[in-house]
């Protein structure tokens, strides 16, 4: 379950060492934008040691490496992969071949380290116009790709439009990302909300992303984690409905009926799948029937 993905600057010890206590489902150790060029070497060693010596159990680890147009990405992977991060986030992914380049490098590294091929998964960060247009190809470029990630700040620069709170300028990109990811059968994560002093705006933005079909959302501030988790957790009502769906299915089966309806609506396969997903998530969150934690 990944609702919240929290960015942590890769060269800042006092934030890294508490990264696993901030309530996020996943942390993103950032070697890219959060690290100055002359500190890339120190940051990757620091992030490697954080992963090696501290316990991030119960919290997935994503490492955002530097992009393919830099001189850093191979050294990033060489240093980080031995610590078995759950995910590598590749910034500025624009086409399938970007994924394949990193995929090949990872495969070679995994072999060298005696790790099973595909241990480290990939979460391409799509933040260019070309990347958005190629989203489906990127999502299906390798079996390693398990999720897409939308980065709206760089994207709007590339689109030559202003990034606004209303987010109308990324409407198309969001829609396209969700469709592409779902078509390829992978998860999809929304760009962080960047104003740390607007909790209401944050909650609205997260709710909108959920409504569009995003799996979860990134946070650049720990103060956003709780809201994101709340928004992307099933509501008590959703959980109750899911249980009702499954009960109706079970009853219909017992009675040998084919078509099933609940509250006047036909229950078809997608509704059942959704109900199962909701219940699985509720169970993981310790929510019982009635939605009480």
């Amino acid at each position, binding site marked *: 379950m990944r609702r919240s993905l929290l960015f942590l600057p890769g060269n*800042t*010890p*006092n934030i890294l*060492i508490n990264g696993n206590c901030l309530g996020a489902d996943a942390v993103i150790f950032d070697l890219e934008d959060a690290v100055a060029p002359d500190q890339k*070497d*120190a940051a990757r*060693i*620091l992030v*490697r*040691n*954080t992963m*090696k*010596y*501290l316990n991030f159990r119960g919290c997935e680890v994503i490492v955002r490496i530097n992009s393919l147009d830099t001189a850093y990405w191979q050294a990033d992977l060489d240093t980080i992969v031995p610590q078995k991060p759950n995910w590598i986030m590749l910034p500025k992914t624009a086409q399938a071949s970007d994924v394949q380049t990193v995929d090949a490098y990872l495969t070679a590294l995994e072999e060298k380290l005696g790790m099973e091929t595909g241990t480290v998964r990939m979460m391409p960060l799509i933040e260019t116009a070309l990347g958005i247009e190629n989203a489906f190809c990127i999502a299906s470029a390798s079996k390693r790709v398990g999720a897409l990630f939308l980065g709206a700040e760089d994207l709007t620069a590339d689109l030559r439009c202003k990034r606004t709170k209303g987010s109308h300028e990324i409407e198309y990109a969001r829609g396209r990302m969700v469709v592409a990811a779902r078509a390829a059968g992978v998860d999809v994560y929304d760009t962080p909300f960047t104003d740390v002093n607007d909790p209401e705006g944050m909650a609205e933005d997260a709710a909108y992303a959920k409504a569009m079909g995003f799996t979860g959302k990134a946070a650049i501030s720990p103060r956003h984690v709780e809201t994101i988790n709340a928004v992307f957790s099933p509501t008590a009502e959703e959980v109750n409905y899911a249980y009702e769906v499954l009960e109706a299915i079970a009853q219909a089966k017992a009675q040998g009926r084919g078509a099933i309806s609940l509250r006047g609506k036909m229950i078809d396969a997608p509704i059942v799948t959704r109900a199962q997903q909701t219940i699985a998530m509720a169970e993981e969150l310790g929510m019982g029937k009635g939605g009480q934690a």
Partner: protein
Amino acid sequence: MTEIVKRASAGTMESSDVYVEIEPAETGLTVELQSVVQKQFGASIEAVVQEVLQECGVEKARILIRDRGALDCVIRARVEAAVLRGKEG
């Protein structure tokens, strides 16, 4: 053996970080440590620094440590980064 050829540093004086400076020396290793947790962790910090230097193959250097309460994993990272920077041409 890894030779330290120039003066180099890594880390910061921020809380929970450590500033490490390394420079070439004629013989042996000298570690000068100042820490906000000297009384409670001084001995253990020195041992960790020695261990990392050994792992990195550094036998001759002068090392200055200004610790602001960094965890071992941070100290290890900063010493390693300083060595990496000091050995390059």
